[in-house]
């Protein structure tokens, strides 16, 4: 099977020849083809080709996509700094739109056709369509976007001290997600758009399960319903970090049969299958730091173990790093994962 046939069959719950491998590679691809890492974020064409060529070189199953974890910062009026140092791989915050409650008054719903990096994301999606790569939109979850509009520390304090302000911000992020999803669906058509929702800030490394229940769960639930009604092809819910105590809530989020839940190393694949396995596809959870620092033998073994666990997922499994593959990953380590999936997948 070709990579897109394999993924399409998995999403449709049809037989596949082997488990797919989604690489979560961005800066790694730029480095691989000799482009600046920042080009992944500020140059859709270079970004697209860097990813397409790297995919061709290694033969994995995820097509090029455009996205970054600090999404929402620039779109709501803050500043985003592109990566350019030796130890940088992703955009980071230069300043935030909101620092105190008064700043909320100036906050407006972004124009999805013009705000921040959205025009670049749209240009990228047109390239996806042109090259028959599935059109995708990658954005943060409502809590993560809220934590990109204001500093995470501020959001955390508000959860306890000013919960109504925290909710207002998270609701705004939720409504923005709906707006941008509508824009993509209007542009490319119902059933043609895949989503990735990254919600790392909602992990228990930051907030408690009770706080998750109050300030994350209602909004992701609302979004799950929205994505189904908007006929999204597939949503990849990327819930990296320590999410074990949040899983029972995530399990109640409405998801389509073609949806994917992607977990980090903190959530065991067997645990993920127990919580979501009959409902959607499971993806994960090779530790990115290990891909970067481990030796090929260890990585090969870890992939083998993970694949064996994943094979028990009733709705299917995708081998994937727990988060972005580090830009400085030794190429042979990366190749080792491809080798493992081809041998055991």
């Amino acid at each position, binding site marked *: 099977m070709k990579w897109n046939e394999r993924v399409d069959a998995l999403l449709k719950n049809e037989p596949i020849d082997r488990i797919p491998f989604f690489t979560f590679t961005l*800066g790694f691809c730029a480095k691989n083809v000799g482009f600046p890492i920042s080009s992944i974020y500020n140059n859709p064409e270079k970004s697209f080709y860097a990813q397409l060529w790297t995919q061709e070189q290694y033969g994995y199953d995820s097509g090029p996509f455009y996205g970054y974890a600090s999404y929402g910062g620039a779109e709501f009026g803050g500043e985003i700094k592109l990566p350019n*140092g*030796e*130890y*940088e*791989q*992703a955009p*980071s*915050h230069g300043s935030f739109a909101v620092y105190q409650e008064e700043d909320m008054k100036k906050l407006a719903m972004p124009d999805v056709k013009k705000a921040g990096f959205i025009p670049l994301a749209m240009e990228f999606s047109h390239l996806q369509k042109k090259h028959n790569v599935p059109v995708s939109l990658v954005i943060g979850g409502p809590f993560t976007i809220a934590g990109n509009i204001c500093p*995470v*520390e501020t959001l*955390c*304090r508000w*959860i*306890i*001290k000013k919960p109504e302000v925290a909710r207002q911000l998270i609701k705004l992020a939720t409504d923005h997600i709906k707006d941008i999803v509508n824009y993509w669906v209007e542009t490319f058509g119902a059933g043609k758009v895949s989503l990735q929702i990254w919600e790392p800030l909602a992990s*228990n*490394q*930051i*907030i*408690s399960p009770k*706080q998750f229940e109050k300030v994350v769960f209602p909004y992701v639930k609302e979004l799950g319903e929205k994505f189904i009604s908007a006929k999204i092809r597939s949503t990849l819910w990327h819930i990296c*970090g320590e999410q074990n*105590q949040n899983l029972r809530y995530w399990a109640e989020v409405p998801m389509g049969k073609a949806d994917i839940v992607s977990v980090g190393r903190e959530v065991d694949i067997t645990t993920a299958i127990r919580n979501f396995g009959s409902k959607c596809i499971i993806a994960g959870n090779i530790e*990115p*730091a290990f891909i*970067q*620092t481990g030796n090929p033998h260890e990585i090969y073994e870890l992939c083998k173990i993970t694949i064996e666990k994943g094979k028990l997922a009733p709705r299917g499994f995708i081998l994937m790093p727990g*988060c*972005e593959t*580090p*830009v*400085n990953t030794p190429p042979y380590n990366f190749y080792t994962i491809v080798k493992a999936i081809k041998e055991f997948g």
Partner: protein
Amino acid sequence: MPSEERKKEILQKLYDAVVNMDEDAAKEWSQTALNEDVNSYEAVTKGLAAGMGKVGELYTNLEYFVPELLLCADALYAGLEILRPHIKVDKVEVKKQIILGTVEGDIHDIGKNLVKVMFEAAGWIVHDLGADVQLHRFVEEQKRINADLIGLSALMTTSMLAIPKAIEMLRADDPATAVIVGGAPLTLEIARSYGADGYAKSAGEAVKEAIRIVNLKK
């Protein structure tokens, strides 16, 4: 001087104010401690700082999370602002010192800031270099301060690669430099492979690990 019973009550109120994230109560009872001649050093160590020690435990045991920890720290600092100027220098023991920072290429500093709170509550002098710290600055600060320990933090898999480089630079200057590391992508194995003397999985464990390292280096 207050009675022993009253003193005990004030110290307990300071402790509770921190544990209960109550900034107003921390200010109020710190002022009460001053007004009623409770020794300021004792009010800090047995009241506010002891409360923060409990908070560290609650955080390690997953009863408190970052929002609670931040508000407890706000209460701690509100009280410290009132009491610190009144601590008599001759009563202060020689304090341990740590240089802290998130390494070059990484702007994430929540974890590092929480670690800072725990060290300050434990009575250490913290030299916080902030986030995205150029590696040579750790070396320069250590030359200037000769701290007991250097604390290096990273949240990203890419920026964590700056940690072994920083350790190498620090040790080139002084092979005995003690280093503790932490941050989401790090593990004990990675910390060891980078040559760090210790690793703390969370802010709640950092001070205990720091004391272990410093005692070993004696």
